[in-house]
Every structure is written in structure tokens, then in C-alpha cells.
């Protein structure tokens, strides 16, 4: 990526931050809610620990840490899925989309710039969650955090295409459609967020094999909770990479198709 494009993403990020920061109370309340939200999580996790502990196996022994990592990864799904369609939909409603699309900025740079703030804010929340979680006794393998960050990035990349497809729906039909909600719900139920996938009934367990989150979360927990190396989780990471590559190609193709359709139909910035 060239310096000019980094500068463009930076400018969009700065504008989003200044805009969000102008709602000061909302920003402070969001952080307080995040911190306070961990407390019941800690007590519930400790209460369930004796029952679920044995089924965690190679994904950490402590259910509180297991749950915290699941919630952190799941927390990235929301922005990955909704940042682009949210920016497009908001841009159509406000008229900013037309203004942005009239600039010489390349489309992928524009999309990255418009989604950057949401993703960075989620990253900041993650750091806060990890810190507060550690203070409550969550056991992390600190050496595995860099690998964990890389895996988290892959999880985001594997889910971004669903956001692109949803944004394509917004461009073409003015609604994001049910895709995002479907992916979120299925990932929460079958992706191993709240419990290991092996406790899911066998007849539906196979579905989890098609979810990027299953592989991402397993690799993430093994690195940040068990201290496994990237080589040790290579098979899961490889599958995640392939899924991300294929889905990104499909996502960009669908988005570009919808963009061309909207430009032909004259509905690009039509509210």
C-alpha cells in the first residue's frame, strides 16, 4: 500500500474518530459497560467450570478464559460484517457516499478507510477486555498474543466478504438482507463461541466445519490460552486462509457487480 493511500485511510479514520468522540458521554458509557459486563461473565463462568471444564481439552483449562476469548473473537465479527454495509447505507442516507465516490480515492481504500474506525475501536475494546479479564484471573499465555493477533486478523478477513455481500445488497436493494444476521447467529451457535464445538449434537456438528470461526477460534485459543506455536495450529490457520481468500474473491466480485448495477440503474446515491 502506498503512502498516499495510507494517508487517505488515515484521514477517513480521523474523521470517524472526531465524529464519534464528539459524543463524549456515549464513548465513556460504552467503555464502562464493557468493563462492568465482565463481572457477571466471571461469576457465571466459575459456576459452570466444573461441568464444562473437562470438555475444553486443548483450548485452555479455565472456562472463564475460554469464554473471554470466544467473546473477543465474536466481538470482531460484528464490525467485520457490518462496517462496510453500515458505511455504505449511512453514506447513502446522508449523501456522503456520493461525495466520497466523486473523489479519486480507489474503492478498496475507501472501504478500508470507512471501516477502519469500527475495527480499531473493537481492537481497543479487546485490549481492555484482556486487561480486565487478566485482573479477574483469566489465564493467558502472553507469548501467544502476537500469533493470536494474526489469527484474529484472519478471522476478520474471512468474515469481511459477508459484509461486502451485504453491502452489495444495500447498493442494489437498499437493504442488507438477512445474510449478516444469519452468519452471526450460526457462528454464535455453532462456531464455538460459548462452548466447544464437540459438545454440539453430532447431526449438526458437521455444519460447524463450514464456518471460518470454528477454525479461527480453535487456533486462537490454542495460541493465547495453551501457548501453541503457529506451526502447531497450521492446519486450522491454513483452512482459515483458504476460506478468507475464496470468500474475499467472491465478496469483492459481488460488491463490484452491485456497484456497476447501481451506477447503471442510477440508484447509487438514491435514498
Amino acid at each position: 500500500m502506498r503512502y498516499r493511500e495510507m494517508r487517505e485511510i488515515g484521514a477517513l479514520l480521523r474523521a470517524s474518530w472526531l465524529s464519534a468522540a464528539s459524543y463524549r458521554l456515549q464513548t465513556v458509557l460504552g467503555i464502562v459497560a464493557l468493563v462492568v459486563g465482565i463481572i457477571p461473565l466471571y461469576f457465571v463462568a466459575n459456576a459452570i467450570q466444573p461441568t464444562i471444564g473437562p470438555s475444553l481439552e486443548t483450548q485452555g483449562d479455565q472456562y472463564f478464559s475460554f469464554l473471554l476469548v470466544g467473546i473477543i473473537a465474536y466481538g470482531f465479527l460484528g464490525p467485520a460484517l457490518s462496517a462496510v454495509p453500515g458505511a455504505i447505507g449511512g453514506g447513502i442516507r446522508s449523501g456522503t457516499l456520493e461525495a466520497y465516490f466523486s473523489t479519486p480515492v480507489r474503492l478498496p481504500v475507501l472501504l478500508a478507510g470507512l471501516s477502519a474506525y469500527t475495527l480499531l475501536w473493537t481492537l481497543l475494546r479487546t485490549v481492555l477486555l484482556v486487561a480486565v479479564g487478566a485482573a479477574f484471573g483469566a489465564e493467558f499465555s502472553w507469548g501467544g498474543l502476537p500469533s493470536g493477533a494474526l489469527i484474529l486478523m484472519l478471522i476478520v478477513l474471512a468474515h469481511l466478504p459477508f459484509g461486502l455481500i451485504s453491502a452489495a445488497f444495500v447498493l442494489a436493494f437498499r437493504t442488507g438482507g438477512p445474510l449478516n444476521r444469519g452468519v452471526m447467529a450460526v457462528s454464535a451457535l455453532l462456531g464455538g463461541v460459548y462452548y466447544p464445538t464437540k459438545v454440539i449434537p453430532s447431526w449438526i456438528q458437521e455444519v460447524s466445519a463450514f464456518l471460518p470461526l470454528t477454525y479461527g477460534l480453535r487456533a486462537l485459543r490454542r495460541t493465547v490460552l495453551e501457548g501453541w506455536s503457529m506451526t502447531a495450529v497450521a492446519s486450522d490457520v491454513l483452512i482459515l486462509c483458504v476460506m478468507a481468500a475464496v470468500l474475499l474473491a467472491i465478496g469483492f466480485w459481488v460488491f463490484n457487480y452491485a456497484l456497476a448495477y447501481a451506477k447503471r440503474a442510477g440508484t447509487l446515491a438514491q435514498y
Partner: protein
Amino acid sequence: MISGLSNAAPAPATGHGEVAPAISISKLDKEFARQKRWKELVRHPFQREMIPALQSVSFDVAPGEFFGLLGPNGAGKTTLFKILSTLILPDSGSVRVFGHDVVAAAATVRSLLTPVIASERSLAWRLSAEENLRLYAVLHRVPAPELRRRVAELLQIVGLADTGDKMVGMFSSGMRQRLLIARSLIARPQVLLLDEPTRSLDPVGAREFRRFLRGDVAVRQGCTVLLATHNTEEALELCDRVAVLDHGAIRAIGTTQQIARQLGDDVYRVWTRDPAHRSFQRLELDGILQKVSSTPHVEDGWTAVDVTLAGSADEAAHVLAFLIESGVSVSRFERRELSLADLIERVVTAPNAIPRDA
């Protein structure tokens, strides 16, 4: 005041060494599908009814020219602007900006041309005016060392220097319009598209803005300006040439004086005591007069009747002689000076009568 020249790419030359027109539009067509009612959608789900938005539109705009687009609502002005801004794809025909095709070289076109997006909501309301300009300065690739000075200059130009640090949400509508204009000028575009730029400005502000557009943007910076307006006086004051667009087609094009001369020469006002005299009808039936219309103007019992001649000025003498021979009392017979607004109305209501120079 703006200083320095445009930082956009220089205009490419044509194959013959001539400078390409700033805007070149040839046989441009665009149609949109009409939105169907639920009943139609169920009965004929795959049938589409198309509505023409632009029909075989062709014209060139020279570099540095101030060109006006006039026409009623729904004439196709906005569609044309959006095609030039690469926000809508044309169905057929060619649209080039300094020789660059708006479809094949959309990114280059966007670096040469900037539309003024009229929607106030397109500004970031939670940011200050200065922050809004800084954002678009980066997106339009204004060099970093120049950015701060450029933002300050533009705030000064549009009269927002004292309120540059104020949140845009607290601005009046007129202030936001001025900021939209400043935003579009941030990149020093070679072509500027303006859609009703003075509609939210007070009369003094509008006059100052027109002066700025003509003096600084067009003359000093050499920027080509395409102005869509309902305000015919504004078009007269600013534009070198105008085109009248109606139902997606160009009805007339030329300098304002050309159009006024072409369309205004044949309208005469007859002051008579017999506005309903059958001689008027006879001249109309014989095709000597194209149109006879009574006006509400009455002076000392003399009524004004506007007549449109089918022929040249010589015909006027013939008509006057005929009216007098027929016993019609005529106190005055004078050529009527039509305003540009009247001319446009004529263009729109009687398109067949309108000559074109392009």
C-alpha cells in the same frame, strides 16, 4: 483569495496536436427503468418500462468556458452531471473530460472534475468546517505541506474564516452551502460542476459568490465551469454559452445573445383597440403568424397582443400593413425584448421552432 494554478493533471492533446475540449459529449443516451407498482410486479415480473432521461445529447465545452445548463425540473441536468461525475454509467454515446472517457478512465476523470454535491447532509455535521475541508483535501490529494494554507484560503473565500472551528451541525443552511462550495474547490479542479449553487444564499451573498466564480474560479484559475441553474439572470451574468435541456434532449444551444436573437426577433407586440379582430385569426390560419396571444396589458383602452411571426423581419411590415388595411386600429407595433426566462419557456413549449447551432 485563491492563489496558484490548478494542481490537477494537464489536459491531454488530441491526435492532431489540438487541446481536447474540457467536456465532449457525443450522442449520449440514458434511460431508467420506471418503478413498477406491486400489481404490475406480480403480473409482469420481468417486463421493464424504460423512461428516457437523456436522448442523443451532444455538445462540447471548451477549456476555461463558463457553460450553463438550463431547463425545467426533470430535464436531465442532474443525470448529465452524475454521468460526468462517474456516478452513473451512460447507456450509449461518449462522454469525455479532457479526452478521458468517463467509463474507461473514471479515476482520472474524478481527479480532473469535481461536482458540488448540493446535499447539506453530505457534510460531516459533527466535525468543524475546517475538519471537513481537511478530510476532502486529503481525499483529493492536496499535498500535505499545502493543506493547511489551502483550507484557510478557502474558508476565507467563502466567508467562514471566523467560524471554521465551529461544528457544521450548528451552521445555518447558507453557511453549509458555502462550505459545500469550498469543499468542491479544495482540489483546484479543472472542471467544476455546479448545480444551483446560489439557491441557499442571500442576494448579497449570491452576488458575491457569482463574482468569485467568474473572477477567481473561471478567469484566474482557468477552471471550466458547468452550471445548472433555474436562475436565468444568473446564467446570463455568468455563462459564455448556455444549453437548454428539456425531456432529456438539447433544445437550444449557443451564447445567451445568440439564443435571444434567434428566438426573440420574431415576437412583436401590437397595441390595438380590437384584440379580437378576425384579421389576427386569418393571419394565423394563413400561417403568417405562428401564435397570437392576448396579454393582460391595457393602457388607455389599448390592449397589447403578442404575435409570433413565422417569417423574417420583412414579414413584420407585411403584417402591420395588412392589419391597418383590414381596419384594425394600431397605435404601436414593436419588437418585444424577451427575457431569457421567456425564451426558455418558448424552447420548452415549442421545441420544433427552435434553431440549434450545434
